[in-house]
């Protein structure tokens, strides 16, 4: 399932620990013993990943918040979601 297929909603994996610290998301994956830090826009997207939003909806929020055009926002969101889902930090639900 692709995180960016336009239908799937995105949520944070229940298997990771995470905090937003001074605007930066710190994510711990116990299964790999890896710690990830996201930049400001990545952290913004991470904070939206509560299972209620699609990639498109996230991109719209990103576009509004950071004043970037919709096309760029969608491309950035899809790239980030692809990376984080491949690492199993995010999970895509629903869609095809």
């Amino acid at each position, binding site marked *: 399932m692709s995180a960016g297929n336009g239908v799937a909603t995105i949520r944070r994996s229940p298997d*990771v*620990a*995470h*905090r937003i*610290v*001074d605007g*930066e*998301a*710190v994510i*711990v994956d*116990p299964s790999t*013993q890896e*710690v*990830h*830090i996201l930049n400001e826009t990545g952290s913004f997207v991470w904070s939206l990943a509560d299972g209620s939003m699609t990639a498109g909806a996230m991109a719209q929020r990103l576009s509004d918040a950071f004043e970037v055009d919709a096309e760029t926002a969608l491309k950035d969101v899809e790239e980030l979601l692809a990376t984080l889902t491949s690492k199993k930090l995010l999970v895509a639900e629903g869609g095809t």
Partner: protein
Amino acid sequence: MQIVISAEPDSGAAIPVIQDSTHSLVVQTEHYAGRMDWEAGLAKFNVQPGFEPFGRTNAFRIVRTVLAYREGGFVLHAGAAMKNGEATLFCGPSGAGKTTTLSRLARPILHDDLVCIHPSGSRAHGLTDSRPLAWAPVALEGPRYPVHAVFVLAQGEKSRRERLSPARAVADLLLRPQVEGAAVTPDQLMERMLRFLERVPAFKLTLNLSDLIEPFLEEATA
């Protein structure tokens, strides 16, 4: 909590076992077997003859590490040096220069490998497994000291020090915990480290090991 260590031949299991429960923690390896009874405040270990002092050192390390987590603190894989009654911590990956840094400082060493961070957030004590041990109950508590600063070490051509953002600092510390058993979840560990970092400044210290180290430490609080 007191710890009692014996040395009796034992045909115990060779498979490491750690069972953590509300009342006790059981540890069994091919080198030693132990049981920590929280209600009685007593830990008993039997170390296989021939595995001293390795087995004894590890028994102490396990008990003290588990206790630190149960008390709401955590344990860092870090060295600690003392100055003016405060501990300065040095952590980093293997080869980053922890041992070299400690050896070049004109400061008493609290511990060269493991440091307990007290739940109060900024007090530390070393996991003192090098103290003289006797075949008798030994109290586990040691003196605790405020933490002055944490330095995450790296080696480089030019020595420099930079303040770590809270996110970077907690990420670096999360790569350096010492955990025994199922004493803490990653979420709890992150929460405890963040509480600690609210009170203690953290820096990345890149060192050319031919440079003097002390000036970089002093500037940390200037």
